[in-house]
């Protein structure tokens, strides 16, 4: 039976920079998928593009990766599928082709178009699209003027078509995360839109590998059983023509793949398991079986899928005010009491200035910021990091907050330190507005 090896070398923008090249060198892979995007990333990229339309708005790490590995990628015929194009895939493509030209190599780069609807929002709204919030039902008119990006999670068939046209690199915009794995399967095995079980199976494979090392022993409950985490292997899905697949990692890497590391990742960010909606198919996550095939290899079979919905998910990001958070380290004795007193002083000072915030936050790192009300109070606390935060639509109010922390070192209780980073920075809040659009309103196409 035909089978292809698809690796994931990047679970998010900021993941291990060496993971993709290690997979290229040692993974014996056919396809390398790289996920650079999150809701907030799109918005950051949209802003970069506004500042610099020629060169901004895509994942620059990706271009550096191709620069270092282009010979090996082409000689080993490893195809790459990445959502690195962000909101400016043309600029990304141009940078990639410049690398190839310099080395006198021929590189075919395809762009999948149609996911970025930022410039068409008004047209859609004029034509009756509501873009109501998927969770709250609120009208998009509430945030219309603050929208900073708008992307449709498109299906995987255009990316598959790009591979059929001979692309070495497929630059997707907002393809679904598992779609990066589904696309090469569609192309290699000729699956159709109604091969629901097969599409569903590849979607599960994509879901398992989409967060990189989180299925190979990273973030695992029994972390003490995982060998060599410092050289953790990133995942490879070997998908068969019938949709069944196995999860493995390159030989001589650290990490651990067993029923439990894979199961933990299957449950990661999962909603209703009977109805996992992707643009390609609806997947029943209660349908399949896991099997430990050999050391660090887990097989999956029996995945059931159903017809997809008639809508695509649309992800809007919008500007929603400002926030800042900063911290002070407070030592023993009486660390908690002194931290509480310091917080009280800062909040009182801001109140005296008549500053009102939409949200404030007081946390005691080292004690209770993670498990909050569940924390069992220790007999003695050696030190605490006091962390304070505010959010407001008024920039100047947030800026004022950032100036209130440092003075505590000389004017508050004794034994306060940890302010070498200076005043905290004011950040824009980029909020997320999930919505739906009818599939027949969106046209995707391949540009090669």
């Amino acid at each position, binding site marked *: 039976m035909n089978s292809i090896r698809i690796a994931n070398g990047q679970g998010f923008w900021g993941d291990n920079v060496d993971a993709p090249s290690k997979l290229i060198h040692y993974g014996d892979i056919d396809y390398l998928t790289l996920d650079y995007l999150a809701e*907030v990333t799109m918005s950051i990229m949209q802003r970069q593009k506004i500042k610099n339309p020629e060169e901004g708005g895509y994942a620059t790490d990706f271009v550096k990766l191709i620069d270092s590995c282009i010979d090996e990628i082409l000689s080993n015929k490893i195809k790459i599928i990445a959502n690195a194009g962000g909101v400016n895939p043309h600029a990304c493509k141009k940078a990639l082709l410049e690398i190839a030209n310099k080395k006198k190599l021929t590189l075919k780069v395809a762009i999948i178009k149609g996911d970025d609807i930022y410039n068409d929002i008004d047209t859609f709204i004029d034509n009756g699209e509501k873009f109501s919030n998927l*969770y709250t039902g609120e009208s998009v008119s509430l945030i219309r003027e603050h929208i900073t990006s708008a992307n449709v999670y498109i299906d995987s068939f255009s990316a598959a078509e790009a591979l059929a046209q001979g692309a070495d690199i497929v630059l997707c915009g907002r393809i679904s995360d598992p779609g990066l794995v589904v696309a090469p399967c569609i192309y290699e095995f000729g699956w159709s839109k109604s091969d629901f079980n097969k599409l569903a199976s590849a979607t599960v494979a994509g879901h398992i590998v989409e967060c990189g090392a989180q299925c190979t022993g990273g973030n695992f*409950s029994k972390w003490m059983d995982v060998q060599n985490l410092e050289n953790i292997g990133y995942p490879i899905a070997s998908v068969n023509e019938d949709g069944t697949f196995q999860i493995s990692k390159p030989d001589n890497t650290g990490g651990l793949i067993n029923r439990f590391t894979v199961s933990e990742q*299957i449950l990661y960010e999962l909603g*209703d398991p009977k109805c996992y909606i992707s643009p390609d198919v609806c997947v029943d996550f209660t349908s399949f079986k896991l099997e430990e095939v050999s050391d660090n290899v887990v097989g999956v079979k029996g995945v059931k899928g159903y017809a997809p919905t008639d809508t695509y998910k649309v992800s809007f990001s919008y500007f929603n005010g400002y926030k800042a*958070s900063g911290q002070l380290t407070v030592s023993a004795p009486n660390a908690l009491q002194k931290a509480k007193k310091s917080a009280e002083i800062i909040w009182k000072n801001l109140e005296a200035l008549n500053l009102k915030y939409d949200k404030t936050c007081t946390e005691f790192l080292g004690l209770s*910021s*993670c*498990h909050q009300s*569940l924390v069992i109070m220790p007999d003695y606390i050696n030190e605490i990091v006091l962390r304070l935060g505010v959010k407001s639509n008024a920039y100047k109010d947030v800026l004022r907050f950032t100036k209130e922390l440092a003075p505590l070192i000389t004017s508050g209780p004794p034994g306060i330190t940890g302010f070498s980073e200076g005043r905290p920075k004011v950040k824009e809040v980029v909020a997320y507005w999930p919505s739906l659009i009818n599939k027949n309103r969106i046209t995707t196409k391949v540009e090669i």
Partner: protein
Amino acid sequence: MKKNILEDIAYARSGDKGPNANVGVVFKDKVSYDWGLKKLTSSTVKEYFGTMVKGQVERYELPNLYALNFILNDSLQGGGSETLINDAQGKTFGQAILMMQIDF
């Protein structure tokens, strides 16, 4: 009966879904899973997390993996980039549930 904690019979991982967190609990075997089906209900989990979860807790069953998936509604003080809390994505909620004392 000897007091155990959930970590003795299960694995867990958590993450965010907008303003909500999800906590996936994978039991070691069928006996543990059957215990979880009976005892680790949406109401026991809601009670355990207390003030950390402002909304309801929903539970989904995955018998094929001996796993339960819990959605902790409104538990991230806004979530995404709107929240101010240190664990903005509920990454540590999985570790929290594993410390639950259980009668197993």
